[in-house]
């Protein structure tokens, strides 16, 4: 195992090590699956033949086959598992800022202009919209609900937008809307998992982890995948949304605190100097290196790397996260107030991190689940607050990236985990006290901005009610494939062996890069 790099499933290093630690042996046995068995079964007969009659040539043939293989090599020096690697082909973007609106914002109150819905406001929903559908809460025959806010056209592209996003609308010509996003999950946690890991179940690697695995990170003094929450409620999907799943845990997202110190206990305790800290770490590293040499467990590498990263971060992280270092005018542009947990602060931090070479920056906002069960989640009350909280900082982030020339090679993605129904929610058949909409996995809207994406366009279309997709549906896996394409990867080539399968972000169903939105 000592020759295997940061890959637990490297089969080459597995054989012929009889004094292996029992735990590791167990782990290796668990890595052998039904798929391996079937694969061996199929190849077995042929191998027997080749093995007996063509033994001399067999070795040469396999070697030749290996050198021609087109699968990409992601092995790195064990001491630097996050080292930058070039993309498969020339990339359009070099970093991603993903703004996830947990709870699923209503597209019908923001970007989806449906005048017919206004005409039919308050009428019973036609049966054809309900047939064969299952909703999270709607039961019986709900009433159609018009958009709660007026729409107007903005920009050169003439995109219709509601009056809730007065700052963002100035950038509408930089945005590429996908109005035909589709998911197959109608509850928050699985839907968020699907958006972030390509799979609705637990245990899969997140988008950011895949990107970090594929590209590494340039700035070794900061984590390559940073997660920031804007206070309030954590996303329903929990920390699994930035988990590395089956990838080595060194690739998982690092959640930084949104107020106070960004990373707890990063500073040295009183009376411990930096040289003393270094001496201590060197001793720990030596022990860890010995452990790795003995057992070859990649998690040991993660541990070493995390100690080293923490040591380097002592210098850089506090500086990168400290928005007090920004001029007051810039802070005002974002509407940020240092010291509190807010989306505005996080957007400003995101820009600072992007400038410092952080590969994947994931921001979460919360409270978009506008069912109408209480004022906080009512479309006419809490929803308006949410819009206010994200509008100005999102616009400021886009503006800053644009005038720094960074929007050229940064991809900004904004979206929730599913859409909302054109029907007013009637939980248990009762009209709700406040105005709200139920979950709609059938159609939702996201937007992207940045390198490689056509600005000022709309892709896909929904019906007159905004209920179902009528043109150019885009699955979550298509979105992932498109993002990986912009980052310079064929989504089928970015894979990792786990449980006998070449695991991919886009999973096993065929995904399509949405060529229509590529610049």
């Amino acid at each position, binding site marked *: 195992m000592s020759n295997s790099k940061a890959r637990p499933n490297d089969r080459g290093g597995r054989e012929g090590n009889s004094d292996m630690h029992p735990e590791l042996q167990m782990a290796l046995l668990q890595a052998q699956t039904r798929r391996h068995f079937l694969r061996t079964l199929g190849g077995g007969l042929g191998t027997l033949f080749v093995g007996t009659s063509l033994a001399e040539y067999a070795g040469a043939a396999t070697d030749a086959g290996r050198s021609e293989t087109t699968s990409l090599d992601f092995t790195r020096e064990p001491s630097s598992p996050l080292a930058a690697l*070039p993309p498969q082909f020339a990339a359009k973007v070099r970093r991603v800022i993903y703004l996830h609106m947990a709870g699923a914002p209503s597209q019908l109150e923001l970007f989806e202009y449906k005048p017919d819905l206004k005409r039919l406001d308050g009428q019973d929903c036609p049966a054809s919209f309900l047939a064969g559908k299952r909703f999270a809460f709607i039961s019986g025959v709900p009433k159609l609900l018009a958009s709660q806010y007026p729409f107007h056209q903005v920009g050169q592209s003439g995109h219709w937008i509601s009056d809730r996003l007065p700052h963002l609308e100035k950038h509408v010509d930089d945005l590429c809307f996908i109005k035909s996003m589709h998911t197959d999950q109608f509850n928050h946690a699985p839907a968020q998992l699907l958006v972030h890991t390509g799979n609705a179940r637990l245990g899969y690697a997140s988008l950011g982890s895949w990107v970090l695995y594929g590209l590494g990170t340039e700035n070794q003094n900061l984590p390559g995948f940073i997660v920031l929450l804007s206070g309030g409620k954590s996303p329903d999907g929990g920390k699994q949304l930035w988990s590395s799943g089956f990838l080595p845990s060194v690739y998982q997202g690092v959640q930084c605190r949104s107020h106070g110190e960004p990373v707890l206990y990063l500073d040295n305790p009183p009376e411990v100097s930096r040289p003393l800290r270094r001496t201590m770490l060197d001793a720990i590293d030596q022990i860890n290196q010995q452990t790795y040499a003995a057992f070859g467990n990649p998690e040991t590498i993660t541990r070493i790397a995390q100690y080293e990263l923490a040591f380097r971060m002592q210098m850089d992280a506090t500086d990168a996260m400290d928005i007090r270092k920004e001029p007051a005018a810039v802070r005002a542009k974002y509407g940020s107030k240092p010291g509190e947990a807010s989306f505005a602060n996080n957007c400003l931090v995101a820009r600072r991190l992007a400038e410092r070479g952080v590969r994947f920056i994931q921001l979460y906002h919360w409270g978009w689940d506008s069912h109408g069960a209480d004022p906080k989640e009512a479309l006419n009350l809490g929803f308006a607050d949410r819009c206010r909280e994200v509008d100005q900082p999102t616009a400021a982030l886009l503006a800053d990236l644009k005038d720094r020339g960074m929007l050229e090679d940064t991809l900004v993605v904004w979206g929730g985990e599913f859409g909302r129904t054109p029907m007013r929610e009637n939980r248990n058949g009762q009209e709700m006290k406040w105005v709200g909409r139920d979950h709609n996995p059938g159609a939702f809207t996201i937007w992207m901005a940045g390198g490689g994406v056509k600005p000022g366009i709309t892709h896909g279309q929904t019906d007159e009610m905004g209920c179902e997709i009528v*043109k150019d549906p885009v699955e979550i896996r298509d979105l992932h494939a498109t993002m990986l394409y912009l980052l310079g990867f064929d989504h089928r080539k970015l894979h990792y062996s786990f449980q006998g399968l070449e695991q991919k972000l886009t999973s096993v169903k065929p995904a399509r890069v949405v060529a229509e939105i590529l610049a």
Partner: protein
Amino acid sequence: MSNLRNLCSGNFRRYLRWGDRISGQLRLGLLTLAPILTVAVLLALLPPDGNERAEWAQFIGRFHPLVVHIPIAFLLLVPILELAGLNHRFSYLRLSAGFVLGLAMLSATGAAILGWCLGRSGGYSGPLLTQHMWGGISLAAVCWLCWMLRLSDGEQRSTFIYGVALALGVGLVAWTGYRGGQLSLGEDHLTEHMPGGLRQVLGLSNVQASLASAGANTFYGARVEPIFAARCVTCHGPEKHKANLRLDSYRSLMRGGKDGPVVRAGNVQGSDLFRRITLPLDHDDFMPKQGKRPLSADQVKLIELWIGAGASGTLPLAAIKDAPTGSASPTAVSDVTFEEIDPAEVTRLRAGIAPAVAELRKRFPDILEYESRGSANLILNASILGPKFGDSDLEGLAPLAEHITLADFSRTAITDRSASAIAAMKQLRVLRLMHTRITDSTLQRLGTLDQLESLNVFDTPVTPAALPTIAKLPKLAHCYAAQTAIPSQIAVPQPLIGKLVF
């Protein structure tokens, strides 16, 4: 069937004289030939004519594609048994050949009957179908012939004829099967996805034959006919004309099908063709038939506009305004293709610089990287080192200058002393000098960067004096000049209009 059982039973044979046995075989032969001849007569007198008939006949006819594989397998097994049987170790195999042949004949007859039911009642017609049906019936007849010859075994001459007949049968299987494949999968189903190289070897053209026969500058010829050609003519074309409808020419389209015209000029809603392509997907009358992709919204719109405008065959293309564009070709935006990396080629490309890159990456870990796995271009991101990167460091990168396509010096300590080092990076597409002390004197020396597309001087002491040089950069698309001494209201030289970003 009882005859067959009798024939095989030893009891029966024991009490018969030689002549009786011959006549018994003949009787059996005539009995099995009868259904084959019946189908042949049916096909000759009642050929498929594109009309749909009795439900029951269609129901059993639908089993034709299933049953048809049984005689294929049996018949192909026969020569295998016979040939293998020539080897004395497997001679016992020959004993079963006659039995398998009998099964092949019976199943071929059954398949032919089902095939006729399907063809006659399922609304098919056309030369392909006729050929396929005659092929199938001939195959049943050849099976019968082989079987008869096999039963009267012995003589050298009949063995030879038997061999020829068997070979003929195998050939018929291939030919009839190919025709059947064309019927169900399209005429070019074998060559459709053939790799380009093989196509050339076989002398096939690489370009799909143009199906548009009407004038390319008419709306019909340019926008409507390609839709029919791509989506409809497989079933309503020269080879199959279901419901007696052909959409492969303007004349046949306007003539209509078995229920009369399908297009009524100017009357969109009264046109059966339009009604059928716009029905709910699960409607029985919906076209294209279930399982096939519906027409796209743009395609439907084009047909609607065309019928509405009079369904003319000569209306000029430009006569109908605001027709959806791009929909004439269903793949207006082609899917992305992924470059394959050829390791040998990459090694060759990088041969000149690989040692220098390896050496310099030791000195500057993390800031120097190839643009991609297949490229020898380099990306230099010195901004990672920030103020720790200075003029002397940049000098060290001189050996690689001509391979750097993106250079980011944001927040570094480089000064105007690096001007010549930057100017030497002839392949630069992106240059970032944000938050540096670079001044006009450096920018004025960058006129050599004729590949530069993006120049970033955000938050530098650069003044309008640099603009004339910047304006001469031929490929420049953006110059980011906020927080410089260049005022955002400045009147910029002509080539820079719209390119300065503040």
